């Protein structure tokens, strides 16, 4: 049987759905088992649901989108959120912490032209989500693994341990310990393959919190490297600012 796949967009940069296109070779290998029937950025023909797998990119920022995600949920057997926007509201969730009144008056020429919510929220805040892929953008490998697993009727193998484990696995010298480079790796979910440390910079957290992140202990290590607290707080208020674990950590710091 061929699985009918759909890709939907909410407030986003399109980077995660572009990762779907970038996975062309891998997808070609499993094409025949899947048929991408709804993907407005790639094709004009649009087929109505129900769909076997629905990928959702982006966060909810308008009343219209808050209603649309509910309809989409009903059309999808398995709903998979892809990327930081969909799983935690994305960088645009920085608006959630701002005074919306002042914020709006600073930015809008004509706020009355707009129809926007005060917050940018994760898809799971609105509907039940079956699987979540993290990252800004998602990892291609995880996308392919997820499609393959869902089609085979098993749970995909997705890590929840920290990036540090991936540095060890690829033999990257710890940038925090060796060079005192501020790195969020110890509290960030693996999945990217520890890209940043292998490019001589610290992880800036684009995959969001790992399971049970110990930010207090990380703060000690950053203090030891002479990094101001304000820098750590700013780093946690980044691409996954909406993640509850990071919000709590910021409050505690």
């Amino acid at each position, binding site marked *: 049987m061929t699985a009918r796949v759909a890709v939907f967009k909410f407030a986003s940069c399109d*980077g995660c759905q572009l990762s779907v296109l970038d996975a062309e070779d891998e997808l070609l290998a499993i094409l025949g088992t899947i048929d991408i029937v709804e993907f407005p950025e*790639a094709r004009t023909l649009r087929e109505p649901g129900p769909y076997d797998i629905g990928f959702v990119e982006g966060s909810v920022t308008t009343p219209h989108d808050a209603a649309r995600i509910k309809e989409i949920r009903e059309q999808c057997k398995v709903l998979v959120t892809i990327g930081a926007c969909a799983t935690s509201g994305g960088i645009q969730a920085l608006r959630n912490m701002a005074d919306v009144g002042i914020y709006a008056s600073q930015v809008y020429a004509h706020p009355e032209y707009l129809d926007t919510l005060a917050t940018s929220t994760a898809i799971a805040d609105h509907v039940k989500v079956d699987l979540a892929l993290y990252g800004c953008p998602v990892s291609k490998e995880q996308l392919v693994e997820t499609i393959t697993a869902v089609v085979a009727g098993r749970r995909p193998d997705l890590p929840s341990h920290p990036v540090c484990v991936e540095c060890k696995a690829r033999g990257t010298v710890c940038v925090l310990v060796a060079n005192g480079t501020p790195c969020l790796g110890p509290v960030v979910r693996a999945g990217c393959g520890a890209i940043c440390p292998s490019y*001589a910079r610290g992880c800036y957290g684009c995959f969001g919190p790992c399971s049970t992140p110990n930010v207090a202990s990380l703060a000690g290590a950053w203090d030891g490297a002479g990094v101001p607290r304000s820098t750590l707080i700013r780093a946690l208020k980044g691409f996954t600012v909406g993640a509850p674990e990071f919000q709590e950590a910021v409050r505690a710091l």
Partner: protein
Amino acid sequence: MPSDNVRTVEVGYLTRVEGEGAMKVVARGGKVQDVEFSIFEPPRFFEAFLRGRHHSEAPDITARICGICPVAYQMSAVHAMEHAFGVTVDGALRDLRRLLYCGEWIESHALHIYLLHAPDFLGYESGITLAKDHPDVVTMGLRIKKVGNEIVRVLGGREIHPVNVKVGGWYRLPTRKELDHLATELDRIRDDALATVKLVATFPMPDVTRSVEWVSTRYPDEYPMLGKTVVSTAGMNIPVDEWNDWFIEEHVKRSNALHSRIKTRANYEVGPTARFNLNADLLSPGAAAAAHDAGLSAPCTNPFRSIVVRAVELLHAVDEALAIIDHYRAPAAPAIAFTEKAGEGCGASEAPRGTLFHRYRLDARGILTDAQIVPPTAQNQLSIEEDLRLVLQAHIEEPDDKLRIVLEQSIRNYDPCISCATHFLHLEVDRG
């Protein structure tokens, strides 16, 4: 159809473009009455939340405006910061930036030509169905795109939202082995890139001619990627930091993106056609010859031929990337040291779809107090609408479904990136 009838053709959700947009045209009695290209992509307010962030974060944050041209955002951002701090990044460090940019051009142009735009010319609804009848054509396109992706992955760490660009240069330099690997890959697609120019030159072209003020950045002796000045076909020639003296953005109701014009003049166009019309003499010899053989000469006035220009630029980017790798000698350090200071900086570079301008104000700690971002698609909105008018008039006798296709094709001439275009006019608040 009786000639006094009002005809409305609407496309509520434009497909095969990046982001969410719509189009509506109205004709009455065989005459164009109204055309509207609107952007309903929800705004994400980057310019607002950039305030309070550190200058070092701007390249990574602004990259998230657009998943298809993150390199453009990173390049315009670092140039603006370096301008504010009085740092010049040149030599091999700058060449590597151009190499990264070549990767983005190759990837983005190949994607647009083969998967998004060619289906219009050949009568398919998508690259997916095109691939069923012409697998070799689409496979060639994907092969080219992959090499573009590979350049960005090797230099930047990953294909989308690369992590290696920073103010002053790079976090880490590529190894000779990595560069040689890229050269091998580029060599393999050089013929494909040339074949692309030949292929798209054979596409049937709607016959439309128009002239507009074309605008691009310029850098002495280089086909523009990282700009130093801004030039136009009407004689404009200004340093990047005089941008706001010349260009103006307006917020109109039907669009979540700002419309740009040249002050005291009219709309203008940025992108491949503008770059070509202003810099054709700076193409690589191979790309210049291919353009000539394809019957292309500056100025190119048929907006549908932008697909040919895009293919020529694709070939140029392949040649340029190979030349950069060939000349590369590793610099002493991956980045230039600088001291941050209060001030203002501007930067402009050439995203695959056109000029991208950034301006930032910083305090003494290097924290942003103000940000302005002018993306290419917002600048092209008025020209997109002007083309819709012309195309509608020229095809007004066609039935609705044919008309809809050619109108959509006309919008895709601009390779619009609607995610980028959505941003808001920033007003200075007087709190006194």
